């Protein structure tokens, strides 16, 4: 009781704090899309034969000829009613488009994040335990390659090697094999849905489709995590408590995994939050390359076509996700470092 209540209060308070953030995001994107130079009507009427009257008719139909404050009022009112507008590039309501695509993005990002975590922590720890050895050089090489190679090039190399040359993975297109029947969408996460449906072949196919894009994303987000882990761990390993532990003859394994990593975790968690947020927003390139039906490529297509509603919806959704991620990170701080608990 006593331990649960503070967490609930924190959650509630943070949820309330998120409201102005989201409102701000909605306002900001509304203004931004109106200030952007593209005119959706001119884009829509792009068939030969569309003269000025046709463009004016479309502007009227889209409500773009009304005063700005009226458009904004309408937009906020619709948002409150759960209507995020209509996309004209897909011809569907934005909310259903986003909900259809969000699991794809999340599944990819989470898996890539998991890979980053495994590889980054392993590399960083290995490097910190033997500064100047081959493990340190390996870590440095991976970080350099990962941060220098644009995600597009890295992805292309992976496709060329694992798909075209070796044929180890299924074609790098979408989330699932188009011949197979996808599992019923309980969660939208194919790896979970296939298991729920007891479809092991499906699971393998989904995993195969996920592997390359996740690896491509992990490659470019690896560097910051590995570097921070290495630096943070080196500092901690040289600190007095750790030297005392060594002097007391505790096993090295216990020293590193229990005491050192624990103390080094705070900066790592901060970086993790950054890396995750960054991955969520910056995976457009990977989504495009692998024809991944995610929210990033959806928003980019919409932006190219002056399709305002999906862009606004995307920003709003990502803002909400960021709020959630930040909340998660803050709660994690509390778990890892008791000193930060009373700060709230």
């Amino acid at each position: 009781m006593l331990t649960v209540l503070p967490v609930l209060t924190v959650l509630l308070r943070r949820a309330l704090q998120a409201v102005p953030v989201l409102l701000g995001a909605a306002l900001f994107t509304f203004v931004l899309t109106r200030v952007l130079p593209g005119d959706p009507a001119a884009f829509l009427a792009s068939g030969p034969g569309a003269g000025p009257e046709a463009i004016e008719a479309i502007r009227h139909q889209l409500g773009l000829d009304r005063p700005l404050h009226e458009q904004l009022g309408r937009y906020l009112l619709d948002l409150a009613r759960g209507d995020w507008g209509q996309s004209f590039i897909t011809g569907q309501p934005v909310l259903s488009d986003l909900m259809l695509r969000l699991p794809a993005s999340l599944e990819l990002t989470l898996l890539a994040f998991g890979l980053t975590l495994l590889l980054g922590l392993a590399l960083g720890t290995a490097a910190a335990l033997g500064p100047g050895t081959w493990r340190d050089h390996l870590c440095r090489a991976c970080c350099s390659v990962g941060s220098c190679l644009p995600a597009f090039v890295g992805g292309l190399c992976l496709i060329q090697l694992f798909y075209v040359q070796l044929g180890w993975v299924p074609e790098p297109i979408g989330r699932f094999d188009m011949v197979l029947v996808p599992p019923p969408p309980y969660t939208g996460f194919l790896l979970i849905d296939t298991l729920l449906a007891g479809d092991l072949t499906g699971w393998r196919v989904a995993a195969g489709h996920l592997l390359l894009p996740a690896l491509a994303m992990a490659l470019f987000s690896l560097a910051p995590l590995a570097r921070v882990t290495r630096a943070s761990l080196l500092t901690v390993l040289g600190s007095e408590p750790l030297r005392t532990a060594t002097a007391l003859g505790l096993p090295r394994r216990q020293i590193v995994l229990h005491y050192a990593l624990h103390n080094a975790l705070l900066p790592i968690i901060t970086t993790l939050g950054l890396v995750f947020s960054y991955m969520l927003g910056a995976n457009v390139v990977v989504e495009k390359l692998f024809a991944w039906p995610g929210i990033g490529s959806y928003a980019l297509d919409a932006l190219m076509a002056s399709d305002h509603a999906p862009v606004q919806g995307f920003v709003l959704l990502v803002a909400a996700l960021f709020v959630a991620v930040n909340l998660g990170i803050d709660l994690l701080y509390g778990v890892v470092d008791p000193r930060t608990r009373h700060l709230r």
Partner: protein
Amino acid sequence: MQRRSFLHTGGSAGLLMTSLATSPLALAQSRTDSVRVLAEGTPNSRDPHGEGVSRESLGTFTNVYDRLIQFERTRLPSGVYRYDHTRFRGELAESWSSSADGRVLTFKLRHDAQFHDGTPVTAEAVKWSLDRAVSLPASKRQLATGSLTQPAQFTVLDPHTLRITLERADRYTLPNLALTFASVLNADLVRKHATAADPWGTEWVKNNAAGGGAYQIESWTPGQQIVYARFDKWKSGALPQIRRAVFQVVPAAATRSAALQRGDADIALQLPPREIDTLVEQGKVFATSIPVTNTFRFVAFNTRAKPFDDVRVRQAVAYALPYTNLFRGASLGHGAALFGGPGGEPKQAHFPQPYPYDTQLQKARQLLAEAGLAQGFKTSFSYSVGDATISEPAALLIQEALAKVGIEISIEKVPAAQWGTLQTEKKLPFFIDTSSAWFNEPDYFFRIFFQGDWRWNFGSFDNAELTRLLEQARWETSQPKYDALIKRAIQIAWRELPILPLWLPSFELASAPDLKDFTYYIHGQVDFRTLVRGNGGKN
């Protein structure tokens, strides 16, 4: 504790290398009667009369709906077909006839045709569809170019006979009836979903196909993939061999190309010239370039503003462009050149044809001096980021070449979303782009690109003589007279240069080696009806 087990899993990173190769199930379905197409963009509507439909939607309309008539096709030396814009054959119409004065067209419908839900196709449904087409703005704009404007023009004579009455005989009526804008919808079905505010059921048709074409939509995932299944009771042609067709959106050209090479896809659309050349070199897939005559690549001048309001400046640029380098460097030689023509009286009355300009720097300098710009000038040169594959190298080559005659251009990359707006508002002094018209006839081309207060008049051109010539040509029935008018119009375009065409691009087809009888249409999408796989072809 949890933390520790969490870190321990680091050891299992080795699972990455477990082979997850293509499951055998992927090939379980017979490949001989299915086809898989990968494209860059996505269809966004099922309504052939809809506003703002994407180019890919035209492929959907072609396969899902029937029209009264369709274009005939001719076989090219490479073995594929291209549509012939001058000849037609029946689709829903068994036959048709024209009155002596060409003002009345009578169509006899086939008796056995039905829509996907089993409703028979009647003249009443055809009339309703055409009424709808001339009532909704997007299709109305196009069909008006063929004198189809009023519902009163369509009369049902009996359940299988439809009459179309025209104010005067129009050579563009039949071509328009063969376009997807004249698709026939299941009138009874759509009426059920119409409302008082939306009498033509546009909201419903956008998300629900109501056709009787050779294919039905089995599944539609917006922005991702569409699965078509053959409609086995289709009567408007020989039953297609392809039973199932999958259209998938794969934005990256490299990925489309890789899947085609591996044999996982059958057709990759919109591959840039470089990818096509690589595929041809490797020789694993069938790749061919089909000349496209209704699309052209050009640079345009704003003829209403300095310095390009002076025709000598435009001609100077035309003599300064590095045509051969441009064509080879930007388009890798794919397409047909529109420069270095002989000049004088045009030999043929077709358009676009090569302009009588080639690279002659001396002439360019002389013309600039005559225009009082011997010292050269500065201006900007724009292209759309969406078109960067071709435009970017072209812009750099043009920048380099024009510097030799003292014209200093700053290159402006314009975001794709903004491009249409800037063109519509005529804010660009000098730019490169590509465009196309529905029909190949020169007077149609000229009316779209060389006159009018709209985006498509890229050079903002206004020439009284040209306008008069085009008005005469519009209704001219004698071919020699028409040709004479057009040749004069072409000479004006050559001399005045509101835009300077560079080359005709080509439609690049890359497909699996066993896929035959592809037919190229105006819209560059895939018509599944004609495709044949393996040895089943009638070659």
